[in-house]
């Protein structure tokens, strides 16, 4: 496979950080995507579960699909959320696996990690933990996860092969990868694929 990178990973990372730092601080601002409770409704999340969460746990949610739509998590599963943002999917996952399970959210943005840790504490979700890290080098042991989830993040990684290799590494044999992401029905012109602004907006 040709793994030529279309954009500079470090430059893309800085652009993504800038965009999502704004989502953390100003979730109801002018973004090119939906956020928060309206987005969760649009993507079919369980209304009663979302309604019961405090605003801080939901308002910065910026996923693109519902990682639980094809398979709800099972009680006691160990789950990694790759690119956990403000933690919304980790909180849904924490509810599904229960106190016997374990959720590790991984994100590169300190502002999102701080927000997600505060929300987890507020909701008493002691089975949910957040770690700082990149998806190209996930801070989780080999084969630890029963399930890896993600939502709207993999399309923002410049080196997708390395990222998917990492997801593979942290999953146990027989484990499940379930994630939300975008796909385009019409081809994007070659020049546009190298335009970082189009990757994030």
């Amino acid at each position, binding site marked *: 496979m040709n793994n030529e990178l279309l954009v500079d990973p470090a430059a893309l990372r800085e652009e993504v950080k800038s965009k999502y730092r704004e989502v953390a601080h100003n979730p109801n601002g002018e973004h090119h995507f939906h956020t928060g409770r309206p987005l969760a409704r649009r993507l079919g999340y369980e209304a009663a579960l979302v309604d019961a969460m405090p605003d801080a746990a939901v308002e910065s949610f910026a996923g693109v699909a519902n990682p639980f739509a094809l398979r709800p998590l099972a009680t006691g599963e160990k789950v990694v959320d790759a690119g956990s943002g403000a933690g919304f999917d980790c909180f849904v996952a924490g509810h599904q696996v229960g106190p016997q399970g374990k959720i590790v959210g991984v994100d590169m943005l300190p502002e999102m990690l701080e927000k997600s840790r505060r929300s987890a504490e507020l909701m008493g979700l002691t089975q949910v933990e957040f770690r700082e890290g990149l998806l190209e080098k996930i801070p989780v042991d080999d084969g630890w996860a029963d399930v890896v989830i993600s939502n709207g993040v993999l399309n923002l990684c410049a080196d997708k092969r390395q990222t998917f290799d990492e997801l593979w590494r942290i999953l146990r044999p027989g484990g499940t990868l379930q994630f939300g992401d975008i796909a385009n029905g*019409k081809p994007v012109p070659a020049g546009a694929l190298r335009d970082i602004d189009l990757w994030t907006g």
Partner: protein
Amino acid sequence: MLAEVGFVDIQISPPYDTFGGARGEKKARLFEVYGHTFLAHKPGSP
């Protein structure tokens, strides 16, 4: 990519109109961009 890495039993959900009504809708429609849920398994037994 999923199959190249080795994942099996790959499923893809129907599309979500993720960007409908958002500021990014026009650009999303241009390239028919929609959200999907993807499901796949790593072969083997625990």
